[in-house]
């Protein structure tokens, strides 16, 4: 018995020694050769569809950075394997699930920073969660680069560590107004505009920005329909629209509600002359698969255009489709762009020190040919907002694929009126 005990103890001791040495060896090499980034997305909950696509986009970006992809030409970080500025270090992304809750997003950010020791963070899809998550990064002095949240106030908080690559609500409000003005010149009625939006940070802030932007141009929003997110039924909202007969309906909705609206509009036989969707739900690939055929002719905003075959954007879109099984959409592309901007800055900083990354981000100056998106470039102002972000209008003409229709310079096809529906 005694002998067995001693033997057992010896075994346990040797196993733990081996385990510890293996673990520490792992750590040492990890510190030498990888750059650890945190990514927060809704991987479960009602926005999981968006989160899963975001994760695929980031993984494609990791593949591009960590392997040599000379075919992508001038595209940053593609040519050689790893980050050249850090001696070919590989990037490793730790994904965290925000579960669609601002509180969880905040806790996960804290975990990524204090336990996973990430050097920078990207995410978190929903504006309301980006709001809380970035506040933690700010407190700990960790750079937070966001590629997709559009609520105006995110960059109005005097934060020093928050950088946003995407165009914001006010940019798009201006695009909508200019687009409608152009359409009016061709004889389309655009005077009576209705706004349908949910009650989240995203819905309310985008709605208020659109309302004030239109007001500035002397046009009042005729009807404002606010509803609670994740609705079980939207019949009363659709009937309200049907009765008021607006010329244009602007939809600010996440995917589940957007799908319900499309189905209910058909059931109640309501076709507004024009629908403009504010991205999010209407760009979700599963929205197009589920109800694209009964939403033909919906306009949408986008900064993504797949480009000519063989171009870097087309090649990346192909890689993305292979990874996710779905076509690249505007949201996933903006998330990927945000991640590339962060990685380019880390590469340029040549360091994983958060302060040096922050300084590099501030000095970012990317040109259009170095980008995935149709922005005029990437350059941050003092608030951390990309001042060169831009967008265009797309239309779901055949119910399957969006095509660029405005402005004329970027248009693949002319806009088709009125809204066809089904």
């Amino acid at each position, binding site marked *: 018995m005694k002998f067995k005990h001693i033997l057992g103890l010896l075994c346990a001791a040797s196993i733990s020694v081996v385990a510890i040495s293996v673990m520490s060896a792992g750590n040492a090499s990890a510190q030498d050769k990888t750059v650890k980034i945190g990514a927060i997305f809704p991987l479960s909950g009602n926005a999981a569809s968006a989160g899963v696509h975001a994760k695929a986009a980031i993984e494609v970006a990791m593949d591009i950075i960590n392997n040599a992809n000379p075919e992508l030409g001038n595209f940053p970080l593609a040519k050689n394997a790893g980050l050249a500025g850090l001696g070919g270090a590989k990037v490793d992304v730790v994904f965290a699930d925000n579960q669609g809750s601002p509180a969880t997003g905040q806790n996960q950010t804290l975990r990524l920073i204090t336990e996973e020791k990430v050097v920078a963070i990207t995410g978190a899809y929903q504006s309301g969660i980006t709001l809380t998550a970035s506040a933690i990064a700010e407190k700990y002095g960790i750079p937070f680069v966001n590629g997709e949240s559009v609520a105006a106030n995110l960059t109005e908080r005097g934060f020093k560590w928050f950088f946003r690559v995407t165009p914001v609500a006010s940019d798009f409000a201006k695009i909508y107004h200019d687009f409608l003005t152009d359409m009016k010149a061709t004889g389309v009625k655009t005077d009576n505009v209705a706004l349908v939006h949910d009650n989240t940070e995203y819905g309310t802030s985008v709605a208020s920005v659109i309302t004030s932007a239109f007001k500035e141009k002397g046009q009042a929003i005729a009807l404002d329909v606010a509803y*609670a997110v994740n609705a079980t*039924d939207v019949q009363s909202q659709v009937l309200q629209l049907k009765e008021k007969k607006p010329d244009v309906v602007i939809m600010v909705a996440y995917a589940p509600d957007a799908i319900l609206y499309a189905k209910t509009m058909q059931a*109640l036989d309501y076709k507004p002359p024009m629908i403009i969707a504010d991205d999010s739900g209407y760009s979700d690939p599963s929205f197009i698969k*589920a109800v694209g055929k009964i939403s033909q002719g919906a306009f949408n905003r986008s900064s993504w255009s797949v480009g000519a075959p063989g171009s870097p954007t087309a090649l990346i879109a192909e890689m993305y489709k292979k990874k996710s099984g779905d076509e690249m959409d505007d949201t996933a592309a903006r998330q990927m762009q945000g991640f590339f901007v962060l990685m380019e800055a880390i590469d340029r900083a040549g360091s994983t020190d958060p302060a040096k990354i922050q300084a590099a981000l501030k000095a970012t100056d990317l040109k259009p040919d170095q980008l995935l998106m149709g922005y005029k470039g990437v350059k941050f102002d003092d608030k951390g907002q990309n001042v060169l972000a831009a967008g265009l209008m797309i239309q779901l003409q055949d119910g399957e694929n969006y095509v660029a229709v405005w402005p004329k310079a970027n248009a693949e096809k002319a806009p088709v009126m009125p809204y066809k529906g089904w």
Partner: protein
Amino acid sequence: MSTVLLQVIVGGLLLGAVYALFSSGLTLVWGMMNIVNFAHGDFVMLGMYVAFMVWTLLGAGPLLGAPLAALVLATLGVIVYFGLIRDIMKGPMLAQILGTFGLALLLRYSVFWWFGANFQTLPENIVGGTFDILGLRIQASRLLAGAVALLVTLGLHLLLTRTSLGSKMLAVAEDSTAAQLMGIRPDSMQAIAWAIAAGATGLAGALIATFFYIVPTVGETLGIVAFVTVSLGGFGSVPGALVAGLLIGVIESLSGYLIGAVYKDMVVYSLFLGFLWFRPQGLMGKT
């Protein structure tokens, strides 16, 4: 009355019937064994996915999908009863809550893992599209769900009040030791109750799938409504759930139309709390 207002009310009634339909299983389980099934919303979700599979694999509509969903879920109900409920019933209340809640997450994320996070839908005209009656738009799929809701409620009510099986089930609910002395096996009765409740829930899911989106987390959205319907109707009362469902549907629609959609939950829940203040047992619950 204007046509629009009438449309709002009719829409509310049809919506309410659907609420009642997916609440009946929850109220039955509570009435039989004082267990709140937190996995209820996810049973609805499973019913929706059965209908979806029947459509994608066999190209068949709810005529096949709904009975099959009822069958699959009834089987699952029995498995869940013997595998989980029977044991946690002996534990404290907290164990029951966490047990069914854990089951909810297990079901949700198993479906998530298998089907992915994408939203799915059944074809719009899978139950004959929409028809016009005197200017009112009535969706055939919602009408079917409403009609089935009435039938299920009536059927469950008759089963419990008019059949010997129902009497046995109620006897077990009242005093399982006494029932055992009369030669009734509580285990079988409770397993049957779970089978019926889960089956009705699966049926509801398959019918809701004809006009709602299908996603693994849809149970979260629908589950809450079921709990409110059941507590308003009176825990354990099947006809109560029907009346409560219709009431909530109409109040939701009317307040959404007249006051604004963003306030409709506020209206519904404040009326709900106000009502429970005066009548905590619900509309038709026993004191």
